[in-house]
């Protein structure tokens, strides 16, 4: 979901860019093995959620830029909806019930 969201927000981006962005925006909380990004990207390529195009990076190197497809956008909405449902449920559990004495 994070990859899809990143691509949705920033447009075409290469793997390194995606990793950087996720790390920065999550304020270094989500710091995983960056490499594990690639199996996920391959999976999404197969699913048809993203497409990759070779281009030139900011420092003039060959890099593959990933772009969200309509199917990917749809998938992102599905995942966000699912995530929101889960977080809402979690919030209800951990928030103190209103009107009840603590």
């Amino acid at each position, binding site marked *: 979901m994070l990859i899809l969201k990143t691509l949705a927000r920033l447009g075409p981006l290469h*793997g390194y860019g995606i990793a950087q962005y996720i790390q920065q925006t999550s304020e270094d909380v989500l710091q995983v093995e960056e490499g*594990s990004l690639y199996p996920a990207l391959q999976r999404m390529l*197969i699913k048809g959620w993203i497409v990759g195009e070779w281009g030139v990076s900011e420092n003039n190197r060959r890099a593959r830029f990933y772009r969200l497809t309509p199917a990917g956008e749809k998938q992102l909405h599905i995942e966000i909806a699912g995530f929101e449902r889960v977080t809402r449920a979690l919030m209800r559990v951990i928030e103190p019930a209103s009107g009840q004495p603590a």
Partner: protein
Amino acid sequence: MGSLDERLGELGRRVRFWLHRSEASRELEEEMQFHLQMKAEQYRESGVPERDAPFAAQRQFGNPLLLKELSTQAWGWHWLETLLQDVRFAGRTMRKNKAFTTVAIVTLALGIGANSVVFSLVDGVCTRPLPVRDPGGLVRLFATNERGEVDGLSYPDLRDFNAQAKDSIELMGAERRGALWRSGDRTVLLMKGVVSGNYFTLLGVNAQLGRVFTQTDRVEAPVAVISYNFWQRGFHGDTSIVGRTVRFGGELFTVIGVAPKGFRGTELWLDTDLWVPVSSFDIYSPGEHEDRRVKGLDVFGRLRPGVSLQQARAAVELTARRLEKEYPATNAKRGIALQTNSAFLMRQWHYVPVILLALVSLVLLIACANVANLLLARSEARSREIGVRLSLGCSRARLVRQFFTESAVLATTGAAAAVALTAWAVRYLPRLLQIVEPDIKNEFLLDGRLLAYTFLATMATVFLFGLAPAWHSTRTNLAQTSRSGGKRSRHGWRDFPNALVSAQIALTLVVLTVAGLLGRTVIQMMQADLGFERRNVLVVDLVSPYDGPKRDEVNATLLDRLRGLPGVRNASLAWRAPLQGHGGGMSDRVVIPGYTLPPGVPNLEIRMTAVGPGYFSVLGMRLLAGRAFDRHDTAGSQPVAIINETMARRFFPGANAVDRQIHLGAAGKMHDVRIVGVVNDVRIEQIVEEPQPYFFVPSTQSGQGDITLMVETAGPPMQKLNAIRKAMREVDSHLTEYETTTLEDLVQSAAGMQRVLAIVVTFLALLGLALASIGLYGVVSYSVARRTREMGVRIALGARFQNVTGLVLREGLLLAGVGCAAGFALSLAATRLIKGTLYGVSPQDPVTFAGVVALMTAVCLLASYLPARRAARVDPMTALRED
């Protein structure tokens, strides 16, 4: 998840990735490389020393090789890759162990091949579905006589069943008739199916050319549909045949269509050349199909939708009882049965197909046990490799899969060889079946059904022989194998190969016993007293175009002429020779003065045949009283008959039957016949039959047109065939030879089914015996090889040749003994199942059982002696220096 469209898209992308996998993998690598460089640069910028930056990046990134592997797994072809890897690995190990591979593949090819050949035999004879619509839905309606034998139905019966049970079943009838057809100057006898109008519509067979006749065909001119084979053979596939009028015998038929290629009628063992509807047949032979006594129809049917076999049975049962009451003269004491076509065929074949398939599966089991033992022995040699792989983190499931792939590669190679073997062997199956019927038309094909069966047998094989070794060898204890250098594994595992060998011996004993019993059956049948002597007699089935005095005159001239030929001892003729087809006819209304019919029996029916003068002396039959027929018994003289012993004893007990009068009903009126002689009983139809009343009338007084010439020769009868043919042509060129055989061949054919069965089962038994002895030899040899050092020590300490061989032989014989004991018990149970096909020998025949056990023991002794001798010749010094 996902619509079909999405899934198809996904599949397309997977295939694309697979096709361009090297490129995709290169791109991935480049991409990851780019990532690492960027990362390293970032670290450098943030002050990490130049040298350490790439390592820091690497650390953050993870193991690139593993990640690449994981990424490519996303393409979804992982399983295929590993499969190919396994297959390649299996191929390598197979090539490395050439001896092992050859033995395993040959064993499997023989085991699977035997199954394929037997399946082809059984399928071509009995179980192949007819090329009609829904062949599994066909049912058979048939009558049974008091002896439980299958009997046909009459056409009026069929009509009544169809009318009264029409809500549950639709029926059609077919009977086989000959049809003479002149092609150039040759007359050939064709097979004609006289069938109900709904024959083709019920079967669901359409014409390939023209049309088929239907129930509603109310044609004035007689019509016929010809078979594809006859169309090609007789008319060279000329399409203008449709609409032409063709003469068959003296009768003209308009050909309205050609049946589709591959449709040969409702029997697998013959080719029908043409079909005519009963309505057309009746134009030439009016009234025959109104006679309830003519019970020659094979009746097929289809159940109405939603009707079960039980319901249909109840309906036909009801009709049968009604008919019994209404027409007691023809329908009393007749059972009626409705079965699926396949069940009917199984019954007709005495369940022989099931027996054969069961026995051949035993052979496959024996072969599997051999290969399993080979694999086990090899896996022990490989235990070090396995140990290493397990300790390197290979999962056990993965190893089991690897083993199964190896087994599958072995089995598939074996199966390919088996198919080649079958393709070669099926060409000999018709020759084998000619023992039963010289004129068989069964087709034995290497078709989809055979391949499917072979495939299933192969798959079963993989599991049977692959499972145990896969399970066993992956259970290897790591620490132990790596320490002991793969030489010894946990003790106790030898029990399993031993059990396998004993099981092989047991199964082989079962097949051997069955083969032995069948062999004894054939011998008994050949030694049975048939009532006639098995002399050199040529038996020629003739079709004579004449009747009345002209026929008698031609016959008499022919017999005189034949008797005059050099090398011919005697000649006679008969309606049917003994054991030739149905053995003649049946007189369905016999009245014997002084004999009262048992209650409920409306008519006395006695089987009979018509014979010429000299018949009894040609066959060497004994005249017990009175005289034989001679040339003074003519159409004009007093009607006479000669009866057999059983008939004399049953109807004239304690009295002289000669000169007594009996009355035979024919053509609506009775006529008196005087008994002039009594002869001994002969087998009429089969070698295995109860003696039954039977009588003979002179051929001149019978009106029967079918003639079978019986020519007794001094030497082998077939050598005289050309001289006899020449004489026939010279006497009358219109006599058509239909089928020629010898008396000896008739006797051999009468035991044909048992003979074929005995041949096939003996072959299977020998194959099983060979495989089992190889199995025993292998296991004992292996055990000897493992104990070389022990043997060396024993010999060094003074053990003699006999001591050592005795030690090994004991081991082999123990296995054989266990196997024989189990096999003996199994055989006792199994042979009871084949009781129906045995003759003159009990299923528990002690001679067979003892002989088979003795043979098995001898073979086991030999199989253990060879390794035992090797063990005794071990050079103690060499053995002790090993390691």
